[in-house]
């Protein structure tokens, strides 16, 4: 029953962040970009729940806006990495032969770079903006997805129903789409869930380094970076965004564990 509690807490945390992100698309208490130099570096109060930053911008509003930009980047990145990884993995594992050799050689080359490093290098090429991050992180994380999917497909192609599909004269495309692809969903879902965590972490790290979504647009990472000069006098500036990242990651990790425990019964009580 442990996965149950994990799953509920994880889903609640992730759901909360997504809810806030969704609301922030239409409404935030203040304009997250509005400067108010008379109200700068104010401690949390009734008017500003989480205080204001060095330009007098409302921290709570900026966190909300940051949630939506992080959520958009994360969803788009995981979608891109998953799509690329699944296509490469299925083609490679199902067709074997030269397709497999060439695709996997390329794949393993990309895997020879630590993910964040590859993303940094790609950011230089595509430029520091929202879609640049999606492209860079998507390409950086796709190879691990491709590896996992290929492994699953290799075992699937030996199963009887795939054999049967071939015997009745289905083309390779039909067999892949109808019989191989649907059976990859479970492992892909597990990996994609943890990938959300990696992407959120990498995206906030890139923003923290100043290579992510450029200011003044708020992200949790660049808010954290911006808080550094005021760390001693305005502790709330550094606490709030970090806590947001940590709680979201915790939610994603718990959800990922629950999903894996469910799909891999060996981890449950014996």
């Amino acid at each position, binding site marked *: 029953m442990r996965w149950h509690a994990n799953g509920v807490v994880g889903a609640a945390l992730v759901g909360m962040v997504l809810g806030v992100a969704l609301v922030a698309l239409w409404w935030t208490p203040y304009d997250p970009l509005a400067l108010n130099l008379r109200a700068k570096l104010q401690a949390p109060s009734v008017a500003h729940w989480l205080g204001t930053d060095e330009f007098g911008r409302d921290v709570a509003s900026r966190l909300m806006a940051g949630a939506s930009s992080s959520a958009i980047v994360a969803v788009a990145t995981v979608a891109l990495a998953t799509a690329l990884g699944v296509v490469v993995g299925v083609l490679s594992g199902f067709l074997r032969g030269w397709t497999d050799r060439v695709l996997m050689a390329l794949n*393993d080359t990309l895997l020879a770079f630590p993910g964040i490093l590859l993303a940094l290098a790609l950011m230089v090429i595509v430029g520091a903006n929202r879609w640049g991050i999606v492209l860079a992180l998507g390409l950086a994380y796709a190879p691990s997805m491709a590896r996992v999917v290929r492994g699953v497909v290799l075992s699937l192609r030996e199963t009887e129903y795939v054999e049967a599909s071939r015997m009745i004269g289905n083309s390779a495309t039909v067999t892949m789409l109808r019989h191989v692809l649907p059976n990859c969903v479970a492992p892909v879902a597990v990996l994609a869930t943890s990938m959300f965590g990696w992407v959120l972490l990498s995206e906030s790290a890139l923003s923290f380094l100043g290579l992510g979504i450029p200011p003044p647009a708020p992200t949790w990472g660049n808010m954290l970076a911006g808080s550094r000069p005021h760390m001693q006098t305005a502790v709330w500036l550094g606490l709030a965004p*970090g806590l947001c990242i940590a709680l979201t990651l915790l939610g994603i990790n718990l959800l990922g564990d629950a999903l894996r425990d469910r799909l891999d019964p060996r981890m449950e009580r014996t």
Partner: protein
Amino acid sequence: MLGYILRRLLLTLPTLLLVAVAVFVLMRLIPGDPVQLMLGDMADAAQVADQRARMGLDAPLPVQFGHWVHALTQGDFGRSISDQQPVLPLILERFSVSAIIVLVAVALAVALAVPAGLMAAWQQNRPADLLIVLGATLLLSVPSFWLGLLLLLFFGMHLGWFPVIGYVPLSQDLIGGAWYLVLPVITLVMIETGVLTRMARASAIEVQRLEYVTHARAKGVPDWQIVARHVLPNAFAPTLTLIGLVLGNLLGGIAVLETVFTLPGLGRLLVDAIFARDYPVVQGVLLFTALIYVLVNLVVDLLYPLFDPRVRAP
């Protein structure tokens, strides 16, 4: 055994070549002309063409690649655009800073995580296990740069125990220099302990289900002996692979931590070079880090048969 080592060494060569190709291609994909960047906006077309020829950039791409790889094998990683210094010594100097932090932190993390993981697995689904898993998951969820900032805020600024900014090389002042590295190391240890504990626990659980463990239990072997003799050696191999990945990832990825603690490490060098558009340095760091990553994984693979003799079989 010798065959395994040779096979593994030979497999590294194509990987290294592909890594070199990837870095070369990445650098050529960067928008803008490196020569124009080097000479500045004031240079006229003739100067640019002249410099281009001198740098061999007018040759066909495969020839350029050949020259570049040849230079690399001589230890020539090019020169930095900003100060004309050779890139390799710069990288090695910065690498020594990152490597000390990462090696010490990972060693400490392994020393904490492996016993914790084994203990959690042995107590699977009992309170001790739930506590360890919860702790590890919490650690896993904290961004390193935030944890670093919090530690800096509390132990550096509030309590004043550790320096908040700056760095002194260990070669200059061993004790004083080490003082600057305590907080970064603690941060990394905490983060990596989370990842490694979960891995150690998961592989120990796999091993515990095997018949020889049940057999040992049936014989009445004490718990600690079963864990030490049967579970640990067999569960350690997957953890070792993860240690390799963690080491490699950290060497490239501690740029954020080096930013928090203002340490002149390899990651910081890369980020600064990206901002300065100093592409020879970017290229050098990318290549160097990928090489280290490949080498670390090679060492891990070579150590693997020590823990899992089945791998040796052809």
